[in-house]
């Protein structure tokens, strides 16, 4: 299964060769995740096509509808971008802890509570303070509760040894129950009859659209959060320390790194981003906190993060891609008579196949410079 990398040049090894070698090595290392990732996506789409054939529909029609519904027109592109906004943030909720070696899947709960906290924080401010101040306070409240929620999971992991994957999901169920309790209780707007909600925000207090396009500012916030996370993880000392303790906790502790504080800090930041996603759903889309904000963005974010191999910059294109697939769901449902869960099946298939493809890493000689010089 190994592909030989131009072995002929290797034997001569001239001065040009030695200067090009580091470049070639970098290129090869960078190309591996892209090549394996793209093959994984293609393989996943192939498996999904078989499934669609098996239920008697045409995969080509489905994929062309998916393109039309997700990216085929300016309208659909804007729709996809709007859906990508919360995914960017919920994916970060998985990606940041993952770099520390923690699998946290409870972003949906932090999102729900972030939305409630934002709506509650807005209540005393609407009408009495300028909109920008109200939005800042809402975002701060949402990030605080989200950070507290997921940071607690990180705390339990490090200081109590509790399995963070299960704990985060339990916390998500608790968070959603708490949200329902608050939204149907003390925070309920008496005017919301059929669908219990908090008081609706006046338009002036909502996050507006970007100039000239029908996409709200949440997209910019999400992209900025991804860029900041990338810088934090890849270039700062904290990020470096986090990556070390993710690679080998014991070694990090021996080196005197504050592993506990790193874990709590990074999980809290991750939860803060998920909470912010909830605030954006409330302040840019729904206008109030209600059951609609629990729409599965937290769970799709898990897939986005794993597809991006927990790289915050790679999250940006993948969130937009999955936002597009979700945006096309309605069109597929109407035109092909397939259930709305079609998108869920596609996501599940992609998820399983992509993780399966993790086993391909290190198997191809062309991507692994350390194998180039070894003679067979």
């Amino acid at each position, binding site marked *: 299964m190994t592909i030989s990398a131009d072995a002929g040049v290797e034997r001569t090894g001239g001065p040009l060769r030695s200067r090009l070698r580091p470049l070639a090595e970098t290129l090869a290392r960078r190309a591996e995740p892209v090549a394996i990732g793209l093959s994984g996506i293609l393989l996943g789409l192939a498996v999904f096509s078989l499934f669609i054939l098996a239920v008697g529909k045409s995969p080509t029609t489905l994929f062309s509808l998916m393109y039309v519904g997700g990216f085929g027109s300016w309208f659909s592109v804007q729709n996809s971008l709007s859906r990508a906004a919360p995914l960017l943030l919920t994916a970060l909720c998985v990606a940041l802890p993952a770099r520390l070696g923690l699998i946290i899947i409870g972003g949906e709960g932090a999102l729900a509570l972030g939305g409630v906290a934002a709506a509650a924080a807005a209540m005393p401010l609407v009408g009495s303070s300028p909109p920008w101040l109200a939005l800042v306070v809402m975002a701060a409240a949402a990030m605080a509760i989200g950070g507290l929620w997921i940071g607690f999971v990180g705390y339990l992991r490090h200081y109590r040894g509790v399995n963070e994957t299960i704990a985060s999901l339990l916390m998500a*169920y608790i968070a959603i129950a708490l949200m329902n309790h608050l939204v149907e209780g003390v925070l309920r707007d008496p005017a919301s009859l059929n669908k219990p909600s908090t008081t609706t925000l006046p338009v002036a207090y909502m996050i507006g659209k970007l100039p000239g396009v029908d996409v709200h500012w949440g997209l910019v916030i999400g992209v900025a959060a991804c860029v900041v996370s990338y810088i934090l993880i890849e270039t700062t000392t904290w990020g470096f320390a986090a990556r070390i303790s993710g690679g080998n906790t014991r070694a990090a502790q021996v080196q005197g790194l504050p592993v506990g504080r790193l874990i709590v800090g990074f999980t809290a930041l991750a939860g803060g981003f998920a909470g912010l996603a909830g605030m954006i759903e409330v302040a840019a889309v729904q206008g109030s906190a209600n059951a609609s904000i629990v729409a599965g963005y937290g769970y799709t974010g898990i897939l986005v993060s794993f597809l991006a191999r927990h790289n915050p910059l790679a999250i940006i294109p993948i969130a937009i891609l999955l936002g597009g697939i979700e945006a096309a769901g309605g069109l597929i449902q109407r035109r092909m008579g397939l259930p709305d*869960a079609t998108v869920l099946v596609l996501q599940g298939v992609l998820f399983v196949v*992509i993780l399966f493809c*993790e086993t391909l890493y290190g198997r191809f000689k062309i991507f692994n410079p350390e194998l180039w010089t070894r003679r067979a």
Partner: protein
Amino acid sequence: METAAIGLWGVPLAILAGAIRVSTPFIFVSLGETITERSGRINLGLEGTLVFAAMTAYAVDVLTGSPWLGMLAAMAAGAVFGSIHGYICKWPGVNDVAIGIAMMQFGLGLAFFLGKPFIQPVAPHLPSLPLGFWSSVPQLRSALDVNVLFLVGAALAFALKWAFANTGVGLMLRVVGDSSDAARALGFNPDRVRLLATALGGALAAVGGAYLSLSYPGSWNERISSGQGLMAVALVIFARWNPVGCFWAALLFGGAGALGPALQSVGVSQGYYLFYAAPYVLTLIIMVANSSPTRPAAGMPGALASR
């Protein structure tokens, strides 16, 4: 009025009845997960298996009119899900926890996709045993109207505990779960044993799912499970990978799950949603109480503890 006559006694009675009803899926899922984890692998995807099995069982029940056929079909589906997990995880570099999450999303998606036409129709239920025939109090009679699967699950828990300790297959499973190297030295193929253990675990979890749609609550919809598959995984840790412990823990969880509806039935409506969170809070507390940051939990299979 009988309701007035037993008054507040209705609450513990409703919790007892609820514990038996609600615990049954926990018993099967946690026994399945125990088998899988004893072989040295974690399958977090049983939530997806549970929901897919609930859908399969109900669909086959609707189409054939036989709940037992539905149960068989669900078990076959659960074994397939487990086999996929077991097969993928044997490859190097693949993370079994992540695959579990992926299989959970896949199972849920597929169940919702294929289950759409079966939300409306009504299908026959699994039978139950009227163990409360001696009583004239209707609440007691309904509380003791025990479903067959609960009794099967209880028997299975004790049988599994015995089998782990006394049969060749049980010993092989434990060797594989404690050390792949030791298992290879004895001539066992760890990957194959784990594949079979995960498939069997999936089939057992599927019985729990079939119970949800064929007995209690007894219909299929997309909200049929509220994380039982995941709580059952936490429950296995609490039960120290001991099948009989799983049975008692499942009863406890069932009781916590029945708290909300029981209080609601006697007219307590305040904090309704918070009581629904009781099982999750209980699970979390139990996990915190049973974990340690420095040493693996007692009874943990060696292959899980060493990574």
